[in-house]
Structures are given as structure tokens and as C-alpha cells.
């Protein structure tokens, strides 16, 4: 009860409500995306995000060079959150989708299918192995990769499919926002 009234108080301002709604509907957004979608000034947005995090209404997760925001009351994704965070990166997503459609594949086959260099694929595969999403197994002289929990990954991809269309729209907005600058 106390938490609920604390949340109500924290979200009393329209601006904070808007920020919170955006994060709740799009878990894992990074700062720049939140700023672009809300149209708020950087300083103002930083202040409100800091406030919401302090009131434990949103959670902040640092992932490499990005800081991503999640609603605390939103769907409890747990591991799926970090999976989603990784799958927002296009190359990693393509590799996962490719591996989901094949039982297993090696670096060369993935590189040929996706049109990326083997060294790039190798770098991405290492990331996915470290994240516990895929496993590698040696067979003779070759190393093969396989998705560990296909159902969970497929379910995340399905559930957040809308977000990937959002990326297309984001790219479109980016292009036209930068025209004339």
C-alpha cells in the first residue's frame, strides 16, 4: 500500500508518467531513445530518470556502452531482460534467428548466410556464448554453435516483435531528424 501511494506520488507529474509509460511499454530502451521519443531536454530527462530510479519505479542496467531502463512493476523478465538487451543489436539478433532455424551451425556457415566476415561473426558468437544464450561444441576440427534455450529465445523474439518494428521507425525518424541540420 505504501509502495503504491509512493509510486502514485512519484508519477504525479505528467512528464514522469509519460517517461514511465514509455519504459513500461518498451523495456530496455537506452537513454538516447527515451530522449528522442519523449522530446525532453537531456538535463530534464536525466533528472526525472534519476528520480524514478531512486523511488525504485524503474531500474537502470548498464550494458557495455549503453544504459538501459526497465520498469520495476513491468513484466518480470529476469534473464530475458539481458537477452532482450542483446537481441536489440541487429547482428546478434540475426545470428540468433539463423541459429534458431538450424539445429547447429559453424562460424563459416553463419558468415555466409548473413554476409558478414568470419571475424565479425566470431566476435558476436563469443558475446552470445558469454551471455549463456548459445553453446559451442567441437566436432573434429570444427566448432559448432547451438541455441541453449530455443523456446525462451523464440518467445522473447515473438513477444517483443513490436519493438523491432519500432527500430525501423526509429531509423526513419533519425534520417529525417538529421535532414537540414
Amino acid at each position: 500500500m505504501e509502495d503504491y501511494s509512493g509510486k502514485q506520488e512519484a508519477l504525479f507529474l505528467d512528464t514522469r508518467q509519460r517517461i514511465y509509460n514509455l519504459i513500461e511499454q518498451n523495456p530496455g530502451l537506452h537513454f538516447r531513445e527515451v530522449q528522442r521519443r519523449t522530446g525532453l531536454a537531456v538535463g530534464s530527462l536525466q533528472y526525472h530518470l534519476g528520480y524514478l530510479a531512486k523511488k525504485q519505479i524503474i531500474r537502470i542496467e548498464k550494458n557495455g556502452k549503453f544504459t538501459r531502463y526497465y520498469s520495476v512493476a513491468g513484466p518480470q523478465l529476469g534473464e530475458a531482460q539481458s537477452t532482450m538487451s542483446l537481441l536489440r543489436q541487429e547482428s546478434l539478433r540475426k545470428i540468433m534467428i539463423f541459429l534458431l532455424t538450424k539445429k547447429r551451425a559453424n562460424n563459416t556457415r553463419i558468415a555466409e548466410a548473413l554476409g558478414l566476415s568470419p571475424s565479425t561473426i566470431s566476435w558476436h558468437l563469443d558475446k552470445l556464448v558469454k551471455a549463456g544464450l548459445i553453446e559451442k561444441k567441437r566436432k573434429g576440427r570444427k566448432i559448432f554453435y547451438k541455441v541453449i534455450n530455443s523456446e525462451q529465445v523464440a518467445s522473447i523474439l515473438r513477444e517483443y516483435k513490436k519493438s523491432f518494428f519500432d527500430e525501423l521507425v526509429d531509423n526513419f525518424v533519425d534520417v529525417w531528424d538529421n535532414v537540414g541540420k
Partner: protein
Amino acid sequence: MENFWDFLRPLTGIAEVLSLPVVLLVFIISIIIFAIALAAYMRKKSARLLFVAAAFFIFMAKWLLQLIDQFISPGLFFSIPAQGIVELIIMVLLLLAILKK
């Protein structure tokens, strides 16, 4: 100069053969781009994106008419002068989007 047009003539012939599939493909791609442009405007509600979405809507409508025209009365319904006016409107909308602050 004459040799230049002689060089282009076979390409025109190929384009004539591929006319219907190309028109269909352009129409399908224009639908996709219009959908993205519309979603972008709905998200940001900016005048610039409104002009862009309108331009792609007219572009899509133009190619729909061209597709219908392929079957009904090729070149007679949607004449080149008419297409010119539609393209002018599209260009003006895109220019407004570029100039809009």
C-alpha cells in the same frame, strides 16, 4: 550523341519487358515505406514527418494507379502529364519537410 541513344535502346527494351513486375514491386515497397512513415509521424507528431508521410502516401497512390493502369488502359488513364503533376506535389512536400525546422 546518336551512339549514346543506341546504347540505351536495348535497356529500354528490357525495361518494357519487366514493366509489370517492377510496377508491382515498387508499389509493395511504397506501402512498406508509407507504413513506416505513418508510424513515425504517429510517434513524434512533427510537421516534418507529416509532410514526409503525405509525400509517401501520394507516391504509393501514384504507383497504385500505375498498377491499375497496366491492366485497364496502359498509358491512357494515368498520362505522363498527370504523373508530372503528382510528382511535383511529392517533390514540394519533400522540400517542405527538408525546409521545416
